């Protein structure tokens, strides 16, 4: 698979902080192929979360061009951006962010509701995806009945249930112990081998090393890192 999933050219992002404009991203250029596994490595405050939000169409760049699968993101309306989030992107956050009043299956169903999928089909796909992340026996459990690692697996299932082009993970192991973190990394590797594109954002060099390609971001400047663990 050598087709381009997205391409960013000269992306700049400014935030208004009081009277001053703060530049968070400086001339970022990044190109991702379908099926790629990329780590964005950077310390906190480096702009890596902003980058992820722009990639995931939660935020838009102040200037520059971002093309995701033939769509020029800058030209899109809020509603079209929601469609992209609904279908092209799957988010995994540091603290899994499951809704406490819904069980695992219903949490995973959530993105399908917004995509307008019928109840029966939703449940089928959610169960399938929970099975894939190794939670076949935890379907009816509520978030507070699951361990941190299991919660993160539910979050991954939720991110993947719409079969998005890319999985965007922001510090996916940040709240987990080392052993559980390794299991999640193992899962990511498997998912990537199945052909899913993954972008993982982290400040931890060891975690970043799981990806096939690592880029560094410091003070909003992106540089190719090159070093990979298992390529």
């Amino acid at each position, binding site marked *: 698979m050598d087709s381009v999933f997205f391409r960013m050219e000269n992306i700049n992002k400014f935030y208004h902080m009081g009277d001053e404009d703060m530049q968070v991203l400086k001339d970022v250029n990044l190109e991702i192929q379908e099926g790629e596994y990329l780590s964005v490595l950077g310390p906190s405050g480096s702009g890596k979360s902003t980058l992820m*939000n722009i990639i*995931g169409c*939660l*935020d838009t760049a102040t200037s520059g061009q971002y093309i995701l*699968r033939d*769509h020029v993101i800058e030209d899109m309306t*809020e*509603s*079209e951006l*929601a*469609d*992209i*989030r*609904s*279908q*092209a992107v799957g*988010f995994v*956050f*540091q*603290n899994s*962010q499951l*809704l406490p*009043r*819904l069980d695992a299956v219903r949490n995973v169903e*959530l*993105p399908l*509701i*917004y*995509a*307008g*999928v*019928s*109840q029966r089909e939703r449940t089928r796909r959610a169960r399938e995806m929970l099975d894939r992340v190794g939670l076949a026996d935890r379907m009816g459990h509520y978030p507070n009945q699951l361990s941190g690692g299991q919660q993160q697996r539910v979050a991954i299932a*939720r991110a993947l249930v*719409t079969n998005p082009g890319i999985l965007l993970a922001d510090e996916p192991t940040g709240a987990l112990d080392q052993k559980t973190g390794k299991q999640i990394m193992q899962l990511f590797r498997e998912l990537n081998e199945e052909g899913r594109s993954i972008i993982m954002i982290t400040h931890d060099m060891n975690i970043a090393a799981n990806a096939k390609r690592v880029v560094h971001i410091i003070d909003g400047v992106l540089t190719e890192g090159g070093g990979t663990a298992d390529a």
Partner: protein
Amino acid sequence: MLKAIKRPFVMIGECFRMSLSNIWGSKVRSFLTVLGILIGVMAVITLITTVNGVTGSITDSFLSMGAGTLTVSVTGSDLKSGMTKADLEELAALEEVEGVTPTVSINNARVSRGGNYENRISVSGKNAYYFLSNEEVVQRGRALNFIDEDNMSYVCLIDEEMIEDFFFGVDPVGENLYINGIPFLVVGIFSADSTESIASIFLGSPSILIPYTTALKMNSANEVTSFTVYMAEGVTSEQASDAVEAAMDVMFSFEEDCFTITTMDAIENTMETMMGMMTTLLAGIASIALLVGGIGIMNMMLTTVTERTVEIGLKKALGARQWQIQLQFLIESFLLSLIGGLAGIGLGLLLSMILSNVMGTTFRISTDAILLGFGFSAAIGIIFGWAPARKASKLNPIDALRSM
């Protein structure tokens, strides 16, 4: 691949589910929030149902007692202050009229016997025709007759209350009773019933009946100012009213504003107008109560939106569109308000049922009131939920997620 999927029905069902679980998830707060709506709707239902019941009961008794009668009250002119006995006889002779019964009231009479006395007893003068057309009034003894009337006899009929007050353990018939110091012979016992005149609703039922001629004499008057006309069979109240008016116009030399003829139709119309005014008034009070309730809901929804910022951001990240977020919050406030409204309808009906039992009025479930309560609470949920839902849908997902 990226075509917008818009299937609102999938969303709506899901929104109801999520909203119910959110409302149920914070039971105490939800309950306190809907309390305003609940009380508002309960008040509306109770007031409307009770007023309807009371008005219904009054109308019913008016109609049953007043069927086939006209009530005439005379204000008189400078030349002629009321109706003489001859005038009444002339009216009674009309083709459209079956009979006429004057009412001459002696209010606040002092009644005594032996050492006992009572002030403010209502004494009413009636004629013989009254007893002929209301035979069931006399419980025991005899009715007043034409001879009593012509002779201005000092005879009376008394009701149960008078027996208790003055004739404990004594058969009153044949005994004397003093009205304003004058001895009256008790000839019979009567019971006030539904055939009493309409005026009795407002003036209270008399406890003692005497010949109207005697009553006139005691009032030092010669003329009757209030009487009831019994219509002949097959005559409409309009025909009878016209005939009586024509005859009385002659008696009062065509002077204006000397008398008023009230028919049942007129009373029914008045009752309906009164009821309409009551309902409008209640609707006004109710809208204030419901407005306050609505503000409570809006406040709760705004708080909820602030509290659930992260959830909103998350849902947006998962692909929720603005309208989907808005719909969810709108449905939540709609449901919240509706639950309050339904509880209010239930409690309101219960309360008005109890009230109608206590007051002895008819309990009639007013569909209008229920629909009003239902519609109002639903509308309030949507109207007052709109702004908070809009606010939620406009939340920037970045800001929302940053507070994670």
